[in-house]
């Protein structure tokens, strides 16, 4: 499936007023200072592993060339980040609002404890994507992964949506071992039929209804707009929807409570 076609739409909209920052020689603190000092839009070139890019920021668009370091967009509070390549570990750690778009793969523990905002990944995610993702009042985090993910997807998920589209073509399973371990809230959607994946007994994994799919339609449409995939084909496929089995799935696991 060719999903690289419309890669640069977000970047193209930005270039007119965007301030350029050459990142290759900057440490992460200096780089973030320059991003904060820049206007509403900035384009970074030559990133090489600087951590915490955009941490806690709002009212910004940050366009990233090169390899951003760990904890990209940690505590993000409304800014929009686009990465034109792969990102490393802990993307969107504890983010609160905003959007992170990655035209490539992401590493482990993406969206760790995020409680708001959206993460869109064109290709694959590493281990523990969406670990301890949570929701709060009107905050409902969303993570859409175009390819496949590693083990422990949605470990301890407590809220929000994790959506995995399985558009990868390397023949590997859509998710590794032990997805949804400790899940006690939120919803997970995997574009695969129920029964193909082993889940823990505290969750219910069933075929998504049309109503279920309607809940995630806009996120799938957004993914397809960003990366050039076919939303009709994707939404017509079978999805497994996973939710915790009850409000308190771990009741009596350790003590009678």
């Amino acid at each position: 499936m060719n999903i690289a076609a419309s890669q640069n739409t977000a970047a193209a909209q930005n270039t007119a007023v965007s301030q350029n920052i050459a990142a290759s020689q900057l440490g992460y603190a200096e780089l973030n200072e320059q991003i904060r000092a820049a206007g509403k839009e900035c384009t970074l070139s030559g990133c090489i592993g600087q951590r915490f890019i955009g941490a806690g920021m709002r009212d910004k668009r940050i366009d990233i060339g090169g390899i951003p370091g760990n904890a990209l967009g940690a505590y993000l509070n409304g800014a929009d980040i686009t990465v034109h390549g792969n990102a490393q570990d802990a993307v969107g750690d504890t983010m609160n609002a905003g959007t992170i778009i990655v035209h490539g793969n992401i590493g482990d523990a993406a969206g760790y404890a995020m409680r708001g905002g959206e993460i869109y990944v064109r290709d694959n995610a590493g281990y523990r994507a969406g670990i301890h993702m949570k929701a709060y009042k009107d905050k409902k985090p969303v993570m859409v992964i175009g390819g496949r993910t590693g083990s422990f997807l949605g470990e301890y998920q407590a809220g929000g949506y994790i959506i995995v589209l399985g558009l990868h073509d390397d023949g590997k399973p859509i998710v590794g071992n032990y997805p949804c371990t400790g899940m006690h809230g939120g919803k997970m959607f995997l574009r695969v039929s129920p029964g193909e994946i082993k889940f823990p007994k505290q969750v219910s994994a069933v075929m998504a209804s049309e109503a279920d799919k309607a809940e995630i339609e806009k996120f799938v449409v957004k993914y397809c707009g960003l990366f050039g995939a076919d939303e009709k084909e994707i939404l017509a496929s079978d999805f497994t929807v996973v939710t915790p089995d009850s409000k308190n799935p771990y009741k009596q696991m350790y003590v009678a409570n």
Partner: protein
Amino acid sequence: MKLEGQVRIPSGCAISAVISREGNRMTGESIIKSMIPMHDRSNGLGGGFAAYGIYPEYRDFYAFHMFYDDDSSREACERVLREGFEIVKAEIIPVKKLPEITDVPLIWRYFITPLASVLSRLQLDENEYVARTVMKINSTVSGAYVFSSGKNMGAFKAVGFPEDVGRFYRLDEYEAYCWTAHGRYPTNTPGWWGGAHPFALLDYSIVHNGEISSYDANRRYIEMFGYKCTLQTDTEVITYIADYLIRRQGLTPEEAASVIAAPFWSTIETKSDVMKKRLTFLRTVYSSLLITGPFSIVLGYTGGLMALNDRLKLRSMVVADKDDKVFIASEEAAIRVMEPDAGNVYAPTGGEPVIVNVKDGAY
């Protein structure tokens, strides 16, 4: 001055490696640079490198790299060496004095070969005799530490940041077909010269990011076979496990990976009958060598390397390649420094070994 613990140092160790499948030799410049974007993963309490193929002119001799507290420990160690070895060369390892590297011990290098008469008297092959000599020196000669003991390879390590350690040892002047590197952030053991990575025995070397929960279980088991854990760091035991499983038990690196990062029983259940039998055998026979806790390691050996994550993959590791070279690092940024156009970027799953061998005859 604030001590570690009074200040927060956000870090975790860093590892990096490059190998040429064609056996082409590279200077240490590139691997040193790869550690720079990962600077914050270390805290200056240890850095080091292992290099394979650096001593072709002495390829038949064991290269002992030594730390000495003082000249008396050197003399004591040399007495031990002279009893069993012909010493064809003894020299101070050339270093570049740097303000960043302090409290430098005496650092010596010996090219040695065991005396045939000693081997025949003891009825030992030379590798076993050399391994026993390393254990003997490290456990009985006060102030002397063998930190490298393989043929045509060497470990170089110090207290400091890895990029400084690389300059200190002038690694841009060495050429190797395989380099591994480590930046250390010691969590609960001292940051001292002997405790820096790599840990090496014979031609096996380990760089390790993580912490072994099973350390004492592993140590007690491996010490039954004559190994002595003297260097106050958990990683040391992985090196001895690799030597035990591969050299002494004759396992392949892949089989050794199935011992130290054994798949869960529930995973073994899903395998074919042949694999099920093999994995069950390895888990059962070597159950005390299962390493638990987070790790990503690179094991270097003559003619190849193996990268491996713990089975739960609690540490990061990325692999990529370009032409004849394969790159491995804790972060993709480190690989991009070595080769901006590296392709096939890939994160191996937990317990999945990545084994790269140099083609036969090229090392």
